[in-house]
Structure formats: C-alpha cells, structure tokens
C-alpha cells in the first residue's frame, strides 16, 4: 500500500506547512506584507521547545512556552520592523523581512552553533502499526492532531467571538472597522501573535519529528510557505490550507516519481508556476 503510505506522509508534512503558511497568510491578508521572516519565528519556536523540554523534562510545557514566547516575539517584530515601513512601497518591507530572516539564521548559528540541538529524551517516539509494514509514529499523529485542533480553534474564534469578528472586519475594510471602534493596532498585534505562535508550534513539532533543531531549518520552509500562500490565492485562509496539504502530498509522491528531474524543494515551485500560468489568481484567489 505504497500510495496510502505516501499519502499519509504527505498529510503529515502538509500539516506542518499549513501551520507555518497560516501565519504568513494572516499577515498578508491584513497588511499586504510578505513576511519572510516568519520562518525565523518557526526556528525560534523549535529552539525554545528543545531548550525548555530538556530543562524541565516536560514536552507539553515546552510547547506552551514556545507558543507564548514566540507569539510575543512576533508582535515585537511587527512593532519594530513592519510598522515603521507601512507607508513604503511593498518591496521595502519584503527586503527588510528577508534581511531580518537571514540575520536571524546567523544569530541562531552564532548563539547555538551550526550543528543544532536535540532532545535529550525525545517523547512520543513509539509508533503504531496501521497495517502490515506501515508504521505511523506517535509524533506524526500528534502533528496531524494538533494542527487540526489549532485550525478548528482558530476558525471558531474568528467566527464566534467579538475579537474574531473585529479581526475579520479589519481585514475586509480597515476604515470601516475603525469607524466601528475597532482598535486596528490591537488587531494587528493579535494577528501576529496567533500566526507566530502557530509557527512556533510547527517548529516544536518538526524538531520532534527529526529530533533536531538547526539554524537553517527555517529557510526551505519559508520559501515553500510563500509559494503556498500564493498558490492558495494570497489572503485566502482556506486556499492556503488546501494548498499546504496538497503540496505536502504532491511532494511525497513527487520525490518518488519525478525526483530524478527535480529536487524535492523545486517541486513546490514547479507546481506553483504551473498553477499560476493556468490560474493567475491562485487556487482560491479572487479576481486579479
């Protein structure tokens, strides 16, 4: 049952992509900024997760701390890096973001060394046998489970709570939202907080899957996440999620079948370019 195996592997990877890409699409939807440095928060989450886990022995605590701290780090990033650049043409914030990202990779390398850190006692390493020969690690089940839970929570929050409605209003029409008394500043902070903490969760999970955090783990994820949000149709959350999962599965199959033509990471971009040629607004994007 190779296909099913590949498919599930693809979903696991896709869930990770979804968690990362969500933060990106949240920021783009609100501010029209391509937040490349988002991947730095992903890596930061991974590092914090490993450090706290090794220090306290509790993985759950590590996850919570990572999500909280990185959420705040994201807000800080907005305040210091993006807010001052809002009035500039879009390429300015893009380059600033890329610069921030490269700088952060370097900082991780200098602070923690180029070889990375590992869990002392990695949790959830056991696995269950789904059917003959195909094993699914507990960690992988956690990835899919946690992603789903986080996504559903977010969806519920945005639909059912006042904050959620305020956020959606701001994305659609900031002036109107302001007229209704919504504090735009707070909405932006919330936006960055949620997106960043989801990225942190992804970082902790990836660290768990590979039992390794290292300074460059964010780079490929960041570029792919960008491809994903464009693929999904910039600003569309649903599109992003679909694109993320789709990409995960595509890569899984792609590496086996067309791996001799393209390396794994290029598959994402080949797919992106193909789709954009047929449908320039992305899978779920509105009219261009």
């Amino acid at each position, binding site marked *: 049952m190779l296909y099913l195996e590949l498919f599930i592997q693809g979903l696991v990877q896709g869930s990770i992509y979804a968690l990362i890409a969500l933060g990106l699409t949240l920021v783009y939807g609100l501010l029209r900024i391509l937040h490349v440095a988002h991947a730095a928060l992903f890596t930061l989450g991974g590092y914090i997760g490993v450090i706290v886990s090794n220090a306290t022995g509790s993985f759950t605590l590590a996850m919570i701390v990572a999500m909280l701290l990185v959420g705040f780090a994201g807000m800080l990033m907005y305040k210091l890096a993006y807010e001052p650049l809002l009035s500039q043409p879009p390429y300015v*914030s893009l380059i600033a973001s890329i610069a921030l990202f490269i700088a952060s990779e370097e900082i991780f390398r200098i602070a923690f060394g180029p070889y990375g850190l590992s869990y002392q006692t990695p949790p959830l390493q056991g696995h269950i046998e789904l059917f003959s020969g195909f094993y699914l690690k507990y960690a992988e089940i956690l990835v899919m489970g946690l992603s789903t839970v986080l996504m559903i929570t977010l969806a519920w929050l945005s639909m059912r709570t006042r904050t959620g409605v305020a956020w959606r209003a701001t994305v659609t029409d900031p002036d109107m939202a302001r007229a209704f008394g919504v504090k735009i500043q707070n909405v932006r902070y919330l936006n960055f907080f949620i997106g960043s903490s989801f990225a942190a969760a992804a970082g902790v999970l990836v660290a768990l899957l590979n039992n390794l955090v290292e300074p460059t783990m964010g780079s490929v994820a960041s570029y792919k996440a960008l491809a994903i949000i*464009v693929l999904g149709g910039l600003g569309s959350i649903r599109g992003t999620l679909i694109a993320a999962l789709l990409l995960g599965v595509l890569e899984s199959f792609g590496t086996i079948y067309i791996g001799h033509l393209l390396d794994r990471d290029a*598959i994402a971009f080949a797919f992106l370019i193909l789709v954009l040629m047929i449908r320039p607004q992305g899978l779920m994007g509105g009219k261009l």
Partner: protein
Amino acid sequence: MSYEITLMTTMAISVLFALSLNFISGFCGQISLGHAAFLGAGAYTSAMLSKASVPFLLTIPAAAICAALLGAIIGLASLRVRHDFLAITTMGVGFLFVGIIRQQEFFGGEIGIAGIPSSGFGKVGFMLICIGLALTFALFSLYVRRSWMGFVFKSIADNEDVTRVLGIDVSRYKLIAFIIGTGTAGVAGALYAHHFRFVGPDSFGFVESVSVLAMVIVGGIGSVWGVIFAAALLSVLPMLVQFIDDYKLLLYSGLLFAMMRFSPDGIAGLCNRLFSSIPRRVSANNGDKR
C-alpha cells in the same frame, strides 16, 4: 598586483550583474527575486561551450542568448501575474533552475563544472574585458534612461494601469526590459565562469539573487550611479574584511535592514537629500537621479 586585479575583476562582474537587474527592477519596477538563475544560465552555457573548445569571446553572445531566451519565457509568464506574485514567482524560477541543474549529470549535478579553461587574455586582459563590458552597459543604461523608453519604464514602475490608459503597450515594454536585463546577466555569467573557473548549483541560488537585489536597492533602485557604487562595494566587502568572515552575513543583512528602515531609496536617495539644500533645477525629463 595580482590580488588587486582579481578584486577589480570581481567588482566589474558584480557591477554588470547588478546593473542588469537594475534595468528590470530599477527602471521598470519589476522586482525579481530569481535573477541569479540568469547569471547561472549564462555561466553554465559559457562554461560548457568553453570546455568544448569554443573560444571564450564566442561563448559570450551564446551565454547572452541562452539567458535572454530563458528571460523571454519568464518575462512572458510574469506578464500574467502582479507585483507580490511576481516576486515569489521569480523566486520560484530561481529555485527551479537550481533544482533542475542539480539533478542533471549533463550539468555536472551537485558537483558542478570545474576546470573551465582560462579566457586566453591573461589576468589583466580579462579584467579589462570585464571592466569594458560593465562600462558599456552602464553607459547604455544611462542612455536608455534619457530616451523615451526610459521615460515609459519610469511610468510603468510608477503606475502600470495609468501607463496602459495612456495608450502604451505595457506588456511589450516589460518584456523588453526582461530580455535586455536577463541577456546582460547571461553575459555577466559568462565572465563569472571564466573568472572563478568553476560553476556549481550553489553559486546561483536564492542567496545570490537576494544579494544582487540588495545591491540594487542599497544603491538606490533605478539609480545607475548608486547601483554601480553599491555593487562594487558590496561585492568586495567580504573579501576586504575577512577577519569578520564569520559575521559577514550578519553584518550584511543588518546593513540591508538598516537601509530599508532608514533610507529605502538607497545611497542615491541619501545623496539626493544631502544635496537638496542646493537649489535643484527641476529636470523636465528623468535625466537625473530619482
């Protein structure tokens, strides 16, 4: 002397490469995050031809044509997408290029192509060729900026829709900018191949594309002099301050961020503001700095 010659050659090639991107991103406003792919296309073309005993000078137009063809395809594709998409699409092209090259033994795979023969002009001769080509393109850029084509480019960079409403075939102009810019990057690639005598997939990746874009932006997007200055400086900075080699990327990206934060129109913008106390004759055409 030999060290200085190498330095000058590296600078000249970087200047040419940066000016080629300036043509696309600076003059025409199309932000490309995958420009290194065209450098690579030219470099690989030139390298493989040279190893097949084609004389160095002949590999240059071949490299240009190969890169320009690729550029034409990308350019046509880019016409369908808009600003934010364009940056990411071009980034994708860059990754795709590296991804494909890496997997094909024909291009040397992971290892690349080594042992590229020397240009045959000696170190000084080669340096002069590089400087000559860089100078030629710089003059060409300055000329185009003064021409009606440059005027249209400026308008496109300012507001594409308005330019269209003024009856201008925006798509054709963008395509031409792309072809000229990428073809010239191909020339730079040919020079690169014969300077470093080695090409590999890692030389033409995302970091390389970001670096050259950084040169254009730090110089001042659209400003020919600014870009020349920034490219020359940034290309040799890592070599000149080797003792902080370990921190060079950090320094580099920190500088870039500071630039964006405090002077997004680059060094040219800084200079403009510095000298704005001198009454400036308002030019009726875009003959001077932006």
